[in-house]
């Protein structure tokens, strides 16, 4: 089967600093890939290359077999869910408008958009009475759920998440992790999930990508990584997770 996302010899340089180089990776459809690594290891860079927020200096990124630079980036992004740290809702819009944002960009059919909103607040575990609230009237956990619902509202094939649960307390975090795992199982969506928490990476990922200094240290199932850490860096990470 053709991989849904493929990086081919990708390189990205900021000024003097090389972020990633000779980066090659194929991600299968339906995978829940967690990306973990030290800060500055290039994990966010890799993520943002999928929806073209960051364009590689060399190499090619393929989404569903197509070189994304030869595609219409705006259309591509509308078909890829995107959730970032702290979820970052639009403060000027109600919960409903936030969730309906991408469906509204895609079509003008109110009926269809309404259905999508209804469906996703249910899946994201939100109460309907929140729809008319504004983001600053929600708790941190509720905001994250709205962020997830917003990212998924247009039923994308791919969901990109950049430390989405970075800003919530442990209990809420646990709930949200279970939620996203359930959503993954229900929808068979492909998820790329950046985190700096090894436990989160191990719990959620069907595959885990460990990055260090712009290169892949290890790529495998959580079990493989746990039992056969390839480098010192991975060993250290794994040791942390056992604490």
């Amino acid at each position, binding site marked *: 089967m053709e991989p849904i996302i493929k990086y081919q010899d990708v390189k990205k340089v900021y000024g003097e600093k090389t972020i990633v180089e000779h980066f090659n990776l194929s991600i299968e459809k339906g995978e829940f890939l967690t990306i973990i690594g030290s800060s500055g290891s290039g994990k966010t860079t890799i993520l*943002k290359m999928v929806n073209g927020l960051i364009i590689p200096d060399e190499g090619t990124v393929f989404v569903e077999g197509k070189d994304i630079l030869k595609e219409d980036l705006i259309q591509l*992004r*509308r078909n890829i869910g*995107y959730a*970032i740290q702290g979820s970052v809702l*639009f*403060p*000027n*819009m109600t919960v409903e408008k936030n969730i309906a944002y991408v469906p509204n*960009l895609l079509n003008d059919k109110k009926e269809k958009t309404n259905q999508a909103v209804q469906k996703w607040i249910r899946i994201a575990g939100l109460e309907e009475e929140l729809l008319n609230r504004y983001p600053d009237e929600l708790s941190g956990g509720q905001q994250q759920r709205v962020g997830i619902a917003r990212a998924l509202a247009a039923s994308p094939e791919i969901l990109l998440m950049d430390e989405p649960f970075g800003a919530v307390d442990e209990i809420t975090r646990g709930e949200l992790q279970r939620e996203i795992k359930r959503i993954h199982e229900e929808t068979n969506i492909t998820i790329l999930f950046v985190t700096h928490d090894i436990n989160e990476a191990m719990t959620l990922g069907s595959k885990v990508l460990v990055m260090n200094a712009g290169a892949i240290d290890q790529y495998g199932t959580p079990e493989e990584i746990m039992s056969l850490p390839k480098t010192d860096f991975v060993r250290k990470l794994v040791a942390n997770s056992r604490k």
Partner: protein
Amino acid sequence: MDLLKEMIDLIIGRKEFFLNLLWEHFYISFSSIVIASVIGITLGIVISEYRGSSKIILGVINFIYTIPSIALLGILIPFSGIGNVTAMIALSIYALLPMVRNTFTGITNVDERVIEAARGMGSTRFQILYKIKIPIALPVIMSGFRNMVTMTIALAGIASFIGAGGLGTAIYRGITTNNTAMTLTGSLMIAILALVVDGMLGFFEKMSGRRNRKKRKVRIILCGGMIALLIIGIAGNMIRSNQNSEKIVRIATKPVTEQYIIGEILKEIIEQDTDITVELTQGIGGGTSNIMPGMQSGEFDMYPEYTCTGWNLVLGHTGVYDESMYSKLRKEYEESYDFTWKGQMGFSNAYALAVSKEVAEKYGLKTCSDLQKVSGQLVFGAEYDFFERPDGYGKMCEIYGFTFKNVRDVDIGLKYQAVNEGKIDVMDVFTTDGQLSKAQVVILEDDKGYFSSAKEGIVIRREVLQKYPELETVFKKLENTVDNEAMAEMNYQVEEGKKDTKDVAHTFLLEKGLLKGAEE
């Protein structure tokens, strides 16, 4: 308390006058606000999207903002003439800064992560702008807008300086005709207008705030209201300018009491004797220097002028003017400007020296030469202007050989009082000063002919005179109907008697038997 009563009487008695000014004020400010908002917000958006240009644009706008308003009006007059258009341009220019700056600040302060989220979800640049950036920046833009509205309404008060309408007219007229109640009423009405509009904006802002769930309705009402106002404004102005289809002459006057009166006299008699409608623009700030450009561009057809001002200021001659040079003055006007002089009413508003009656009797003073002999015992007082001008104090002392005991700077409005109280003995006056008619002073004959003659006459574009020859007859009727004393008396009635210039003008025409009803 007296002043308050005077103001109330004034408002009740001249309701129409003030309502008209209020409407004009509203119209001028509102138009400027609309123009400035459209241009300002657009510019603000452009420079926030293309940040490279922001430094230059903000720099330029900041610079313009620091130009004093009076100067800006002066700069604009050669380009856009005198009147409402120039006022609106100037007000719009000033109003730009708060709009551009707040729009720019509001948009550039939007959280970068929010913008990235929007971008990552597939918004186009334009969608990010109108769905995200502008709505989030709106409170900041709105606060700039409210600032700007209050500022524009207040600043519109100076528009009358260049002959535009509005409540500034009342202020300016009050100042130039010594009518404190009118000045205060005008200022107060501007303040109230600004407060009411700001209050309304605050109310609408609250109503359309995002916490208000009915905001859609409020927005519709707000937009509807704005559009309705705009239509009323445009329609109102069209009705006004429709009057242009008939025969019309435009008369300008300078900001001095007697010119206001002459303006009203001209209007009443021209409209009575001919089928011409007179559009009167009273009290143009800066007088001759701002009216002449308007005459040249055809915005004004005629205005009352003084011969020596024409000779020295307009034609640029130096030296003393006397009335034997009148035909030369006229000829030069016709050659240089294609304007001519008509209808001299007889009075001369020239400089002269006056002494208190007591002093005149004590020393037997009749002429300036008489004064020379006793000047060593007397105190001379004048407004600073007289000391500064080249044909003022210094030259005068040289010609007449005055050596005053003491010299004092006295405010022009307090000169007569100072003489009455004996603080000064000799002062400069204008020969038609309103207070002259009641003050206990004697004017000394200028026996050496030091002061230029300043006979009043009407400067008119010859083209207009050819088009409406019937004006000649009207001017003939007015010739030599007013001497210095009569003019001073009329000025007094306005400045001290608080009479309306229109009423004084009407009474004058009635007494001279120039009104048709009065002939029978």
